[in-house]
């Protein structure tokens, strides 16, 4: 971006500055540490200059917002046109309680719904399964049948909201329920907007909520991509997620590299099925974490868009601009929140949310300050949402596009992030791709190693966490926590009993049998699953059939 002569002169002057000014200063006041590193282990330089971005080609590496490679942003006017979607993930207890929370959030100005399901639902178990004991409605809402889904969205017109569902293994079943509900409301399928997370590969790597082995899991992911491409044009069939990889302990670089590797695997799977890249790629979406190291995080988001755009155009031959787009949802970090001095988390969330917006996210969830202690209380959720609103309307960062673009430091970090991702791609490909690498425990070990390293650094005070290993004061302000009412399990059990007693058993059996036959023929499972949920087959019954056909996944234990 500068001419060579200028760069040389700047380099010469920089050396002189180091030798004279800096050395003299260091003799009197040494620096706080011998080296400063990002979470990814990148050495932060004392000062970045034009020399660090000398090889950057503005037009091909940065370009303009809305144009390849989208480093500076996806849209031509970014937040000047429309702010990011403020989407708070929520759900607990019965469908009735979550329905009330949804209406409350919509009333407070939230613009999209995001459903958290409880663990039994996530694992394809009904509320009355023995393993569900003590877990029903605790970490999310319990949905065992279309009846629960109906209550969950009562009085919410599905053609007027966008709904994100954090569901993976049983994604096909929950999406089928949503479609059936929309059909019942008279909403057109074109009007259904939202996202199913539906990213099984990161489950095997990090989140570990797996039901079936990798191959049938990826088949189901691809079924949903294929079904949505033909039938739900406004639905994001998959949200390729780095968030869980990061929460499990990875660095920012690993989060990005592994997520993009998963994205490549899904694209390849859809292509193998005979789909055309420009048909399905525009609806692929991504989900990342935002942590405390603001500059590294901004670099990660910018690099993410650039790498994806290049992959889609150069490797997969995409022609449509939308296929090259990386739309991203961002959530602030759960694992960076501390149980010590919990109000400090308000400030952490602010920094992280700022990173997401400076990084050009399309939607954002801000965590609540009490989440290291329990599920968030209503008050804490309100502060979390207000944090986004203050950034949006008061900080000024939404008023120009990519305000950190051109920062010598951020551009250098963006380049280093891209180089690091490419190096990981080579390693993954040399193992034969993502699934073989999962089977060898590669990602699992990489993540466990980083988590352990982080813990050691905190314990040795090489990384300072305020309130935990520095500025530790006994603080006895325990915020008021949310408790899930204990009656949820009973309510669910009774409802399921009534449902199973009052339905047409032959119709249910027939619908489940159609799923079996579909598995045998290796056809798209969405159609028979939609029929099955309409016949009031439960989540557990449908997933049970799939387990019978595909077998159960056994976790590879790496620590």
């Amino acid at each position, binding site marked *: 971006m500068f001419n060579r002569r200028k760069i040389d002169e700047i380099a010469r002057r920089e050396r002189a500055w180091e030798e004279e000014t800096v050395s003299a200063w260091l003799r009197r006041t040494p620096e706080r540490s011998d080296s400063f590193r990002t979470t990814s282990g990148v050495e932060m330089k004392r000062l970045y200059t034009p020399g660090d971005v000398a090889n950057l080609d503005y037009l091909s590496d940065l370009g303009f917002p809305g144009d390849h490679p989208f480093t500076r942003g996806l849209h031509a006017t970014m937040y000047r046109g429309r702010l990011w979607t403020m989407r708070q993930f929520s759900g607990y207890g019965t469908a009735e309680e979550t329905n009330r929370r949804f209406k409350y959030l919509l009333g407070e100005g939230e613009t999209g719904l995001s459903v958290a399901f409880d*663990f*039994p639902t*996530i*694992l394809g*178990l009904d509320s009355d399964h023995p*393993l*569900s*004991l*003590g*877990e029903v409605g*605790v*970490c999310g809402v319990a949905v065992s049948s279309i009846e629960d889904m109906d209550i969950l969205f009562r009085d919410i017109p599905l053609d007027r909201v966008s709904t994100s569902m954090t569901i993976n293994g049983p994604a096909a079943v929950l999406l089928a329920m949503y479609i059936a509900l929309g059909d019942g409301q008279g909403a057109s399928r074109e009007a259904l907007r939202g996202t199913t997370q539906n990213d099984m590969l990161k489950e095997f790597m990090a*989140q*570990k*909520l797996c039901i079936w082995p990798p191959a049938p899991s990826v088949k189901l992911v691809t079924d949903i991509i294929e079904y949505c491409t033909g039938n739900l044009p406004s639905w994001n069939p998959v949200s390729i997620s780095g968030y869980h990889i990061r*929460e*499990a*302990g990875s660095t920012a670089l690993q989060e990005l590299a592994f997520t993009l590797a998963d994205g490549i695997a899904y694209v390849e799977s859809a292509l193998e099925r005979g789909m055309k890249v420009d048909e399905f790629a525009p609806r692929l979406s991504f989900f990342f974490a935002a942590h405390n190291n603001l500059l590294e995080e901004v670099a990660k988001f910018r690099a993410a868009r650039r790498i994806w755009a290049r992959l889609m155009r150069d490797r997969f031959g995409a022609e449509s601009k939308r296929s090259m787009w990386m739309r991203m949802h961002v959530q602030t970090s759960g*694992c960076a929140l*501390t*149980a*010590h001095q919990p109000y400090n988390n308000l400030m952490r969330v602010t920094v992280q949310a700022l990173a997401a917006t400076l990084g050009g996210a399309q939607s954002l969830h801000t965590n609540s300050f009490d989440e*290291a*202690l*329990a*599920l968030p209380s209503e008050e804490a959720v309100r502060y979390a949402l207000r944090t986004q609103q203050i950034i949006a309307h008061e900080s000024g960062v939404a008023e120009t596009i990519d305000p950190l673009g051109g920062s010598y430091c951020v551009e250098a970090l963006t380049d280093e992030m891209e180089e690091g991702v490419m190096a990981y791609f080579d390693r993954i490909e040399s193992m034969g791709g993502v699934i073989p690498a999962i089977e060898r425990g590669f990602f699992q070990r990489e993540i*466990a190693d980083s*988590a*352990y390293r982080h*813990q050691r650094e905190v*314990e040795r005070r090489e990384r300072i*966490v305020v309130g*935990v290993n520095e500025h530790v004061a006994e603080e006895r302000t*325990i915020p008021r*926590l949310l408790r*899930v009412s204990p009656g949820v399990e009973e309510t669910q059990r009774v409802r399921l009993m009534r449902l199973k007693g009052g339905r047409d058993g032959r119709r249910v059996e027939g619908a489940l049998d159609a799923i079996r036959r579909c598995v045998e023929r290796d056809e798209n499972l969405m159609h028979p699953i939609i029929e099955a949920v309409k016949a009031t087959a439960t989540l557990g019954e449908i997933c049970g059939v799939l387990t019978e056909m595909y077998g159960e996944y056994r*976790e590879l*234990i*790496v*620590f």
Partner: protein
Amino acid sequence: MSMKTRVLVAKPGLDSHDRGAKVVARALRDAGMEVIYTGLRQTPEQIVEAALQEDVDVLALSILSGAHMTLLPRVMELVRENNLEDVLVLAGGIIPEEDVPALKRAGIADVFGPGTSTEDIVKYINEHARREK
């Protein structure tokens, strides 16, 4: 004669947040203990069975799903039924402080929340676990 302390790190509940369990397992191993990790989603029955089979001195339970008040007392019931009362049972994860007294009454020796240093856990085990068998 001193033998290596044997620890079973177990994850009851359906949640899959195993970062903490694995970090603790590794720290205990690095501190010279023999560590067995059960993997995810173990029922109280499976956990106590494993503790019995592996003849452990310490049972470290990690749970973040919120089902601790259902599952941990059940583990303790089975611990007593199997005469494993001399096994030191610890819990960690997301467990609100107001639940701790009830868990201690049920027989959990101590609860280690987020932010605990692994060195403190090592020290606690060295001071409290049985040594001779």
